[in-house]
């Protein structure tokens, strides 16, 4: 496996990892932001410039304002995503296997996804308290749908000819699932997980808004309310965005590693 990855065209790899477009985008974004602040003449409490936010971001990380909240939120996201995506994998496989299960469950799955998570979150906080559990549940709930659907579609679209091939070599039921169906459906499943991991970030923040003492969502409320520190609010938003980007890249990296070049 590693052998062929080493043989993969170097040019394509270099193009993928070339940081120039990313840096260019960042520069354009920051310049536009600063320009907006200058032209509009906004006060820092209304729209702080990138330099102010950058300064506050560094300060807040160094003096420990953000760090404990960020770790709390990250933990909720990771746990919630793991639980949600794990359950979604199992349910997705069940849905793929059985049309009866699909017809039985899909109305509720769709309804759960269509109901705004903002409306459900207070209810979950009411039932399960304002601790870690309720946040993990909200995360899991929001991650569940895209991963379950992606798994179902992925497994349903596995090439029947590959399945027959595996049967010809006397694959058992579980071997068929593990060695053929899941690997074949992996690109689709990981596509669902890319969507799911970004949703998990939203789930965690909403869970924290619904009640809690710690987390980036709580920090947003603090910065907006009692502290009235808009630069801190922006620094928190930047942290949340960074967490989302990093987790997304982790999923992409896992995908690259597991799926690789299939041609």
């Amino acid at each position, binding site marked *: 496996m590693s052998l062929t990855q080493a043989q993969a065209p170097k040019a394509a790899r270099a193009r993928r990892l070339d940081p120039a477009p990313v840096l260019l985008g960042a520069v354009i974004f920051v310049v536009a932001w600063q320009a907006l602040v200058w032209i509009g003449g906004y006060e820092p409490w209304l729209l702080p410039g990138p330099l102010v936010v950058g300064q506050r971001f560094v300060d807040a990380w160094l003096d420990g304002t953000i760090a404990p909240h960020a770790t709390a939120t990250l933990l909720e996201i990771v746990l919630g995503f793991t639980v949600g995506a794990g359950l979604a994998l199992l349910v997705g496989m069940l849905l793929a296997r059985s049309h009866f299960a699909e017809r039985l469950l899909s109305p509720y799955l769709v309804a759960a996804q269509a109901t705004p998570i903002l409306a459900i979150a207070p209810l979950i906080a009411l039932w399960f308290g304002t601790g870690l559990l309720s946040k993990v549940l909200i995360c899991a709930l929001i991650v569940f749908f895209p991963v379950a659907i992606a798994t179902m579609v992925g497994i349903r679209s596995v090439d029947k000819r590959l399945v027959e091939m595996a049967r010809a070599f006397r694959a058992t039921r579980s071997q068929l699932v593990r060695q053929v169906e899941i690997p074949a459906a992996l690109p689709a499943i990981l596509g669902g997980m890319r969507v799911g991991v970004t949703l998990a970030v939203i789930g965690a923040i909403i869970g924290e808004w619904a009640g809690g003492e710690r987390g980036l969502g709580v920090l947003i409320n603090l910065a907006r309310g009692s502290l009235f520190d808009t630069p801190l609010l922006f620094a928190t938003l930047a942290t949340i965005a960074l967490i989302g980007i990093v987790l997304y890249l982790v999923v992409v990296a896992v995908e690259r590693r597991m799926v690789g070049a299939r*041609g």
Partner: protein
Amino acid sequence: MGEGRAARPGRARAERRLTRRRGARRPWPACRRPTPDRAPVRLHAPARRPARPETGDRPLASIDVADLARSFPTATGTPLVALDGVAFRVPERQVVAIVGPNGCGKSTLLRLVGGLLPVDRGTVSLDGTPVVGPDPRVGFVFQESRLMPWRDAVANVAFPLELAGRSASERLARARELLALVGLAEFAGARPHQLSGGMRQRVAIARALALEPSVLLLDEPFSALDALTRERFGVELLRIWQETATTILIVTHSVSEAIFLADRVLVLSPRPGQVVADIPVNLPRPRRLSMLDTAVVSVTAAAIRANLAGAADEPAPEEAWGLQPALAASRGRDPLEGVGVPAWFDPFGREGGA
């Protein structure tokens, strides 16, 4: 080598088709009629090489198919009878090709022999033991290579060994050995998309051989390859056959391919599929591509073609060869109708699509 279509053109054929009555199949000479309950007749003295020492201890298997029937449910409710009363025997180490018109159930037959589909009626046995479900004695090669795109060549070949629970080191060693056998030793680390169609199919053959099957079933393994690759592939397949102790049953569309590879060619009728002819190929082994230009091949090809169509609308070979003109005349036809262009007179190349 092109497609194995019958190349007798013209209106006469269409007219004959119109006048054909169902069930008016001509009686076959006893020697041609497949009789599975009878001891197999050696149709020719095969130029067999002695078994290689390393293959000598492997089990060999003959294939016995008796009264095989299989139908499929359809949307209209009337089941589609794919095969009805198929019977033949393949002695161990023989190569038998199955040809037949499209949709006559060739692939179904192969799946029944391999135990991939349950039979409706009849039996399939390998060396006297019935086949029930996918069988460890069988290696399957499909029309498309059916390699797993996420595995490299060596891991694809090792797949059956993995399913069988062999140790990692054994799998790797055996898979590399098999890749060397099919001439792809340097491509062990290549993914399927990095290989050509012919190479992929060779990987598929190596995979089929992984568990040392005594029977190799090939379902149109060349159909995705271009003509030149096909010819070389045929030679390659025979070399692999010589180096492994396998009995081969191969489904093909191409008459010349069937002749080049096989000891016998079974011709299947249109649905419901039945064996309508069992034609020996009297070519010495080892086969060479140059043999394809010999008279023996032309005559055999003509016999196969006559039977291919004979299942539908062409004269039996005896008539085509002018052996039974009186019979033809008695049916109110021009006795020379089938003789006008003797099948064996047509050069073999005509199937290339002239």
